[in-house]
């Protein structure tokens, strides 16, 4: 039964495996040699985030928040080591590095009123490095939030251009938008590996911040190494990587019976390169927050008086364990890791898109098993030839259970529905389960032609097979005939630097290859096999110019695609019909931005801004046809806007930052079919268009004892009121809206014992405001959280 499509796919995978195997046996000679040290100021206080650079090799590192840094894989011999930091004079020291040994240094930096820093990327913090790339990017240092109780969505939501809309409390569904493009148009990665088929058990609202080093959000223009069909952008979260052994454990307890546990441990043996990582989390919440609702009289259907009642069926539990083991810094691999992720969740569903119909027993369960292999080797055989790759397999089991005859009201009381076939949320009781089996393989090669130019080639292959079943159903189930979807994304890019590195540019092309196969049995019992195979080529560029030592202009552009999902093209084998003519969504994305900072005395101002433009066409939408529906290419959308952030730091330990985003997302579909549209050029409804964040905080060291640290932070978020439906339509006084939102969160943290023991106390929704991200779906009111964290490293 293997068609042409299947054969082609296998050929591709074989080619990919051969490619990976070719590189594995390659051996080069590099002794295990490194430098480590600490950087302090004249008062002997550790200086965080100082850049350290070996001048002759351009190898560098950034000190962490405790002033500690290390540089690995150094050629033995004499070197000049330069340390530099904004507001301090550069310091260069001579070091003699012995082969196979760790050389320890200590550097003191003196404050300076003149900023002598060179414009150079190497040696800066990873976050700073990422920010200074030519791409439009939000790079968020999550490490500094490790003591905090915030989850990743909350952290990212505070940055410009991003909008995370949650339906409720911990574990609820959410929609992640980058500059107005959302859903499947945004792709998610962990350490560069796409999150496909991991369901909701491993997602941005349950991964604890402790496991993450930083997050990078690429807006509209995505580099080739994140090989995917990301129409609107991509988010890559980078887990904490270290050569030092560490153990990080945290537990938090909070309102609504919320408990969160996170563990992160790393072992590395410098002698034989053996390494192990273990990461785990456990989240639980009753989510029994109160909402203002009316209890409906089951006899008459009429509403009672509004009252405050708790969510009674919204508990959430999720867990994840990840083990990986392998070798670091071997002659044959800088990194070779084999690992496995096990994750699962159980999520009670309180209601659907309307709070008029509360559920008492509907739930979802996801279970994911995902073994993987990662490999990375720099200077493979030839100096300047870096390769990396991964191979991962994901088996995701997703269950939707709707088996109750009870009909609940908001008090948790129920009546029995006489018809024992009908579920609470759907027309038929179901234990619908679908299984996605996904294989993803990636290979990336970088060749550094010279210090100014490099070429990247990246190949990502993915194959998803979906099959559904429902033991309760006596009839055909959605996806009961398996469907297979193969996507290949090839990327090639060239990056170059000019004018003493003041100008850097990247040009890239991406080739998307899509093929898919599904068999469908129609109402006559007739079996049809649908296949589809097509290619699209995208391209893009990013360019940046450092106009001063602290100022930078950026421009980037991509002609991006989002390929259809299997069910969009082939339906679900039930009432969602196939549309083999479905085309990919496409968009021309452009960004123009700047970064600038200024320091005088104790004042430090950083600012960035970005203008964005997205000309998106052929959005894939569901369209009803009789009692059935099908996905069609409908809706062109033009999104443009501006986002900006200003951050002011005083005496290095007080800061205030303010950002805002305005996005004008308009309907660019002049004709729907052949009908001239009355809502052409109208703003696309139900998407926020104006929002911003204010953060204010401070930290103090040696407050109660030596080596302790106290911080406080206050965050406010504002979202302007927006319309549920087309703005131009209807009586303006009687339109449905999602009201203006102002939410305040506050947090204090205290750490002592040199960062070993940490405490955080957080209050979310300080004023107990009624918050909505979706029409009439109330979010939790005021809540409190206490987090304790223990961290050691050596």
């Amino acid at each position, binding site marked *: 039964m293997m068609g042409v499509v299947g054969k082609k796919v296998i050929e591709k995978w074989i080619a990919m495996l051969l490619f990976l195997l070719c590189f594995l046996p390659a051996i080069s000679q590099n002794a295990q040699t490194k430098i480590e040290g600490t950087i302090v100021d004249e008062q002997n206080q550790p200086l965080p985030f100082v850049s350290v650079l070996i001048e002759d090799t351009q190898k560098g590192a950034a000190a962490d928040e405790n002033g500690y840094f290390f540089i690995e894989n150094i050629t033995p011999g004499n070197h000049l080591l330069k340390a530099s930091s904004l507001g301090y004079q550069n310091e260069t020291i001579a070091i003699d590095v012995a082969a196979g040994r760790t050389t320890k240094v200590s550097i003191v930096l003196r404050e300076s009123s003149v900023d002598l820093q060179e414009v150079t990327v190497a040696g800066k913090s990873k976050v700073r490095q990422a920010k200074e790339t030519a791409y439009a990017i939000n790079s968020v240092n999550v490490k500094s939030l490790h003591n905090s109780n915030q989850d990743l969505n909350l952290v990212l939501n505070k940055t410009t251009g991003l909008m995370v809309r949650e339906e409720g409390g911990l574990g609820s569904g959410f929609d992640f938008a980058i500059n107005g493009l959302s859903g499947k148009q945004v792709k998610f990665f962990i350490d560069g590996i796409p999150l496909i088929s991991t369901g909701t058990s491993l997602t941005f609202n349950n991964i604890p911040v402790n496991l993450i080093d930083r997050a990078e959000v690429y807006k509209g223009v995505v580099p080739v190494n994140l090989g995917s069909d990301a129409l609107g952008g991509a988010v890559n979260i980078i887990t904490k990587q270290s050569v030092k052994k560490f153990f990080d454990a945290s537990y938090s307890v909070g309102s609504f019976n919320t408990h969160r546990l996170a563990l992160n441990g790393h072992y590395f043996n410098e002698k034989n390169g053996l390494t192990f990582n273990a990461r785990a989390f456990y989240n639980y919440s009753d989510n029994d927050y109160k909402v203002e609702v009316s209890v409906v009289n089951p006899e008459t259907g009429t509403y009672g008086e509004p009252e405050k009642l708790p969510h009674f069926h919204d508990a959430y539990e999720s867990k994840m364990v990840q083990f990986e083991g392998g070798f670091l810094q071997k002659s044959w691999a800088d990194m070779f890791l084999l690992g496995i992720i096990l994750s699962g969740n159980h999520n009670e569903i309180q209601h659907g898109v309307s709070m008029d119909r509360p559920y008492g027993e509907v739930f979802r369960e996801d279970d994911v098993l995902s073994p993987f292999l990662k490999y990375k080797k720099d200077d493979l055989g030839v100096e300047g030839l870096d390769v990396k790759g991964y191979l991962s397999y994901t088996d995701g089991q997703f269950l939707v259970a709707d088996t109750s005859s009870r009909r609940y009201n908001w008090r948790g009381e129920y009546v029995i529905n006489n018809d024992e076939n009908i579920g609470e949320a759907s027309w038929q009781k179901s234990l619908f389960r679908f299984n996605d089996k996904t294989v993803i393989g990636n290979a990336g090669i970088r060749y550094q032609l010279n210090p100014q130019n490099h070429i990247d080639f990246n190949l990502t292959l993915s194959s998803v097979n979906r099959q559904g079943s429902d033991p309760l159903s006596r*009839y055909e189930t959605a996806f009961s005939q398996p469907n297979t979807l193969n996507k290949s994304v090839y990327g090639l890019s060239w990056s170059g630097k000019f004018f003493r590195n003041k100008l850097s540019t990247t040009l890239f092309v991406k080739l998307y290859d899509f093929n898919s196969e599904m068999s469908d049995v129609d109402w006559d019992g007739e079996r049809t096999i649908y296949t589809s195979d097509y290619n699209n080529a995208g391209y893009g560029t990013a360019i940046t110019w450092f106009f001063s030592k602290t100022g930078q202009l950026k421009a980037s552009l991509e002609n991006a695609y989002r390929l259809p999902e299997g069910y969009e093209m082939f339906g679900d084998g039930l009432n969602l019909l196939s549309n083999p003519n479905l085309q990919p969504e496409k968009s021309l994305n452009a960004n123009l931005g700047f970064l600038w900072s200024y320091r005088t005395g104790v004042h430090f101002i950083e600012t960035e801004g970005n203008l964005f433009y997205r000309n998106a066409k052929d959005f894939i*939408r569901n369209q009803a046809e009789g009692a059935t529906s099908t996905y069609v290419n409908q809706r062109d959308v033009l999104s443009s806007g501006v986002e900006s952030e200003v951050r002011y730091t005083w005496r290095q330990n007080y800061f205030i930052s303010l950002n805002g985003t305005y996005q004008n997302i308009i309907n660019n579909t002049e004709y729907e079919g052949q009908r001239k549209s009355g809502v052409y050029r109208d703003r696309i409804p139900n998407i926020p268009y104006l929002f911003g964040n204010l953060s204010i905080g401070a930290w103090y060291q040696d*407050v109660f004892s030596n080596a302790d640290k106290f911080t406080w932070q206050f965050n406010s978020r504002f979202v302007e009121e927006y319309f549920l439906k087309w703005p131009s339509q209807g009586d303006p006084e009687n339109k449905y809206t999602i009201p203006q939102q102002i939410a305040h969160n506050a947090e204090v943290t205290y750490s002592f014992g040199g960062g070993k023991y940490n405490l955080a106390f957080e209050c979310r929704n300080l004023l107990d405001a009624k918050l909505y991200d979706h029409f009439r779906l109330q979010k939790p009111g005021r809540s409190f959280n206490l987090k304790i964290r223990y961290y050691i490293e050596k």
Partner: protein
Amino acid sequence: MKKYFNYLIRSVLFLSITGLVISCSEDEVNPDLPSDQEAYTVALQVLGSNDEAADYLVQTETLSEGTITSEGQGLEQTGWRYFAQVDKSVFSIGYFDDNNCIGYQLDENGDLVEYGRFVFEKTLDCMLPADNNTLLAFEVPRTGITQRVLHVIDAESVSLDRKVETDIYKPEGDTLPKWPTGMVVKGDKLFVSFYPVSPSGDFSTPSVDTAQVAVFSYPELEFEQVISDTRTSPIGVYGNATGLLEAENGDLYTYSSSSLAGGFTKQTKPSGILRIKNGTTAFDPNYFLNIEEATGGGKIVYFSYAGSGKAVARVVTDDSVLWGAFSPSNPICKLVIIDLNAATVTDVTDVPLHGAQYATPALVENGKVYMSITTATDAHIYEIDPETATAVKGAEIDGLEAKGIFNLN
């Protein structure tokens, strides 16, 4: 201690300098709407897809000219809605996730205002008035051999009066659930037309050999009998509560589409019209209007009573695509006048080929019928004269279609 005091001072200073503002949200304002004498209420569906699509109840002075638009006016609905009239009230009925029904009436200024709402469990279909204070509607499960729930809705209080579970018709050994397509209350009887549908949820129709109408007692709503006729196929189509109509003399007429475009996956009998004579509960054996013969191969997918023994009907001219009659922009329908007594069909040539729709409205006033006609390029209200089988193009509809045309005065 001094150090802490300094931290405190600096923190307070910093907070106040930055001028942190905690603002409050403003109160809702609800000013009176401007009032004018607008006789008609039109339910408009705006173009759009998914959640963008919205319905608006718009008041207008005339159906004959100008543009009926929801731009800047009209009562917004939360999603795709059905609309039904009971006396001087119009009901807006949500679909599945939007599971409530809202009642609207004109206030003393002639402005349309909400006067009540209630919640139902899943979805209501096939809503028709039983009398001047009662709306009937069926909850119809999409899969399985499950009972349908007939909702009796009190129009005055906008609330459920009672719910009656029924199979509509289920003889021994019958495995096909029934989909209701029309209802008429006549004296102490409720007539319900229906078609058998597969329980699998794919809406296929394995049994299309018989036209049937179930008869219930009214207001008790107890099943009495089913009447059958094998000259044509099952009665009515999905999404339109128009399978049955009653003439002034009390005769009932039914249409059978036997149409792929109307959602029937099998066709074995000709499309046609049957009659149930006043005072009887049987199909008139002497009456059958074969629509395919009368229209040269067309199939009827909708009819509405126009008065004086005449009906306005939609006839599919191209029956090649399943569900083809449910896309307003797919122009495969012609409009015809049916003389029910004479059993003749006359094309209304003034009305172009157009698409059919769910919940097709028709307002009969002063002997004229007002209908929403959507072609591939535009949508208009047509004023149709059933006597002459002519039509005049009236007001333009600034939207996909009108889903309801009402006079609530």
